[in-house]
């Protein structure tokens, strides 16, 4: 039996009808990972025992007739980005610094997904401390793009995107600080959601930019992503995270509503942006046309200050990261160089050896930007720009219910193709302003590039705390383009479907 291409409801129907057991689902996933991930390198740690243990509970519920009382992810194979704490597993953030760190506690997002009945398969590769757009900065080596093994899966949640694209999990969690869910989702041809800041608890997720980070799901279908988000908000506001809010939305509720009468915005300055590849632009314009054909009104909106988002982000992100990463000091946990003559030497050697180049760069940059005299030149203005960008979105949402935009200016690039940091930063040009303003955004597959033959994602951007709007549009695009397939090289012959 092949489960790798099944959606969450398909798995749950199969379980309820007795076609297979949760234990079989878990075991099949474990086997598939064992076969395929050596090549892909999306997982940093496997947790087969935990998955089988969770499956046992699901099967017990099936036997007891209480399956429907389980959560929205009952029996669904899941995996977590390796910046999320899960008690008893490693949380490395793909860094030498945390290579041997074992979590003594569990992140709220992980806890909620597990409580929803999911089967946890392991922890997923990422750019070191989420600094990057390709997973190339992972201390443990990059993850490959399942659509083309010579290319990057995007980042920083590259492992999360690749695992779903290759069928190595049905749902994964990632985190998005400037595009780290949406860009890899686009590169790997899956659905990736960055909810509004505050929708998902950040407690237990290793912080990069505290005012920008948000956790969200990857899945191959819009409905699976919506179910995962339902699981993440179940239980209400997390008391362990001041910025978490109480959300009572059922994100699956309007998936079938269509877009008739919806007002969908297009941002001309995005569509005309320098650096936007023609094949990407083509797909986004096509998507707009399909939405129009489905009854939506397409309206041009301007985000005049979005151009400043990039520089605001590269001020705010490093400033917060510099401070957040100060705790990695070789005293309580983490990489520690032994035999130093004093603490200063231990600090300097451990932090030099524990952090990769990009992490060191951002720490240095943040420290510089916050120093006295410099603070007023960059940090404070960046927070003022944040006000302007937020106002832009507020104004735009007077006219539209959702905005359609590119995710990334191009499709997945080859390993080593982009070397200098400032060029790499440009791959976030369409995603960053959403983190700055805090509202929700997601990537949904809209076919392959005419030239590259690689997946392209369209970005849907919701007003703050109206994340259901983008889900509704995403469901329509999915109807137009079909649900995201497992990347061809990883699609197994499904014995159940082989005979059809």
């Amino acid at each position, binding site marked *: 039996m092949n489960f790798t291409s099944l959606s969450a409801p398909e798995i749950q129907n199969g379980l309820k009808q007795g076609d297979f057991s949760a234990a079989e689902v878990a075991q099949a996933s474990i086997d598939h990972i064992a076969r395929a991930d050596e090549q892909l390198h999306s997982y940093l740690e496997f947790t087969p025992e935990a998955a089988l243990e969770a499956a046992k509970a699901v099967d017990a519920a099936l036997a007891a007739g209480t399956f429907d009382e389980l959560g929205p992810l009952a029996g669904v194979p899941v995996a977590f980005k390796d910046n999320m704490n899960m008690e008893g597993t490693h949380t490395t953030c793909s860094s030498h610094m*945390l290579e041997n760190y074992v979590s003594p506690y569990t992140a709220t997002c992980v806890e909620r997904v597990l409580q929803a009945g999911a089967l946890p398969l392991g922890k997923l590769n990422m750019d070191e401390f989420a600094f990057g757009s390709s997973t190339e900065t992972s201390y443990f080596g990059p993850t490959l793009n399942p659509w083309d093994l010579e290319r990057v899966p995007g980042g920083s949640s590259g492992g999360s995107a690749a695992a779903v694209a290759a069928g190595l999990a049905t749902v994964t969690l990632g985190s998005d600080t400037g595009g780290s869910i949406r860009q890899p989702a686009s590169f790997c041809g899956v659905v990736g959601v960055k909810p509004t800041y505050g929708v998902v608890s950040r407690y237990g997720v290793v912080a990069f930019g505290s005012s920008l980070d948000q956790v969200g799901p990857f899945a191959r279908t819009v409905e699976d992503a919506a179910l995962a988000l339902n699981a993440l908000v179940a239980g209400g506001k997390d008391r362990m*995270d001041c910025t978490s809010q109480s959300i009572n939305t059922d994100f699956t509720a309007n998936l079938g509503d269509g877009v008739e009468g919806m007002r969908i915005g297009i941002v001309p300055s995005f569509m005309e942006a320098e650096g936007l590849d023609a094949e990407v632009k083509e797909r986004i314009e096509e998507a707009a046309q399909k939405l129009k054909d489905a009854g939506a009104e397409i309206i041009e909106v301007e985000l005049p200050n979005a151009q400043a988002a990039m520089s605001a982000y590269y001020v705010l992100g490093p400033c917060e990261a510099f401070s957040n990463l100060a705790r990695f000091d070789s005293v309580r946990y983490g990489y520690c160089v032994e035999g130093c003559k004093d603490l200063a030497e231990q600090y300097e050697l451990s932090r030099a050896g524990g952090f990769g180049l990009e992490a060191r760069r951002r720490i240095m940059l943040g420290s510089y930007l916050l120093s006295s005299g410099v603070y007023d030149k960059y940090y404070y203005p960046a927070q003022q720009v944040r006000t302007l960008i937020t106002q832009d979105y507020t104004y735009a949402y007077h006219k539209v219910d959702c905005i359609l935009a590119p995710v990334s200016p191009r499709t997945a690039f080859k390993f080593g193709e982009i070397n200098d940091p400032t060029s790499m930063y440009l791959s976030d040009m369409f995603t960053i302003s959403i983190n700055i303003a805090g509202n929700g955004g997601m990537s949904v597959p809209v076919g392959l590039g005419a030239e590259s033959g690689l997946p392209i994602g369209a970005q849907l951007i919701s007003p703050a705390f109206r994340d259901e709007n983008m889900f509704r549009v995403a469901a329509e695009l999915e109807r137009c383009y079909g649900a995201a397939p497992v990347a061809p090289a990883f699609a197994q012959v499904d014995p159940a479907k082989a005979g059809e």
Partner: protein
Amino acid sequence: MLLQWLLHSLRSILQRLVSNVKKLEEVLQDWEAVIGLEVHAELTTLETKMFCGCKLEFGADPNTHTCPVCLGLPGALPVPNRAAIESIVLAGLATNCDIEQHSMFYRKNYMYPDMSKNFQITQGPVAFCMRGHLDLEVDGAAAKERVDLKEAQENGSYVAHIGIERIHMEEDAGKMVHVGGGEGRIAGATHSLIDYNRCGTPLIELVTEPELRTPEEARLFMQKLRQIYLAIGISDCSMEEGSLRCDGNVSLRRRGETKLGTKTELKNMNSFKNLHDGLAYEICRQAEVLEEGGIIYQETRHWDPSKKRTIVMRVKETADDYRLFPEPDMAPFDISREFVEEVRQRLPELPDQKAKRFEEDYGLSAYDARHLVEHRTTARFFEECMRLQGAGEVAKPLANMIINDVAAYLNTNPEITDLAQTALTPPRALELVTLIAQDKISSKQGKEVFAAILEEDKDPAAIVADRGMEQVSDTGAIEAVVDGVLAAFPDKVEQYKGGKTGLLGFFVGQCMKEMKGQGNPKVINELLTQKLDS
């Protein structure tokens, strides 16, 4: 710069060994001291830490009150303790501060191993409490130190109005033990051990304006602040255990000068006496350096009470750059008027108000009232007595007894925090005071009875009876003794009458001796003068 400073330090140490440092009162003739205090108080009366639910407990096994938040584990987030916010607002109201409507937490970034996150959560330019003040009544010898104040010189007392810049909320660091060096010192230690139990303890820091002018004012300020914090119940204020800590900034300028001098920061003043003596030493030290044409360096100095001097801890070449920025993990605060009023309802009677009430209700002098309320224990005891007896005539002598005898007893027995732990009950105290007021015993005998109550756990009357102390006030009996004494010393009587009136004391002494100390000295005095002057 550094070399110059080293040479200078060496020279000043050598000089100090040979020269006689001038006394504080002399120094203050020519120099004005400008003193500011930074006072940290741990909110020890709360159940849990500032940003997590770990229990606040002093003296537990190391690292048994820690969690992801206070250990600074990756991914942990702070959530502020509501009761701590209430406590700081209470402290602000009790020290006449404005409670700011909008404030935020900030991160103060510095790497030090006792601070688990390597940043301290504190507040920025706007603290919860801003612009307060305390008024200090200064009297006694130290009042004369204010040569600039006419009233201080003329009346021997004055009121100092000390501005409070702010009180902000922050978190304490963990504790370190330095191993391998001498006496647990950091210098020479081979390694250190860290316990994070204290890390994250709610801490409020009060910063005064640089408006204190003498070490005595600083001492009184701390004393008053401690009384207030104890009264509002936010901290146990133990200076020994470090739940109340004080740093001082001191600079000098010539009298009449308005420009501020370079300041030094003084640490380790963990008692009222150390605070006073440390500041006094530092003022004298600076004066000496300046008078010799030397330079004061901006440095942190450590008060060593055993050697009675301050020593350099570190030189600040540039201002510290802590990369302060708003804490992104926490929401800002909007403190509503309603919230402030709600907290104000919980404000108990403060020491100043209590003293005022004692003056008005019981006819006490301002001095007596102020000293009565210095300790919660004595103020409470006085009130219990008054409840039994009403104000009346005993209020004044009772207050005196409490300020002198009871306070002295409490000072020598610091383990006693409540007089209910002792044999001195309010009825016994009243009885004792009444015995003295009715001339049944002398006030000197009263002191003996006071000590006996505490030792023997008996009523004053019983003690007086046991010891045969009943004072003889019967004029007839005393007259016989007086006559006998005068007859026994005719030459002395002659001398007295010749103008040597100082001999009166001699006659009183002789009479008392005859009466084994039980004669009423007042009656003896009266009869003697009556007979001698006739």
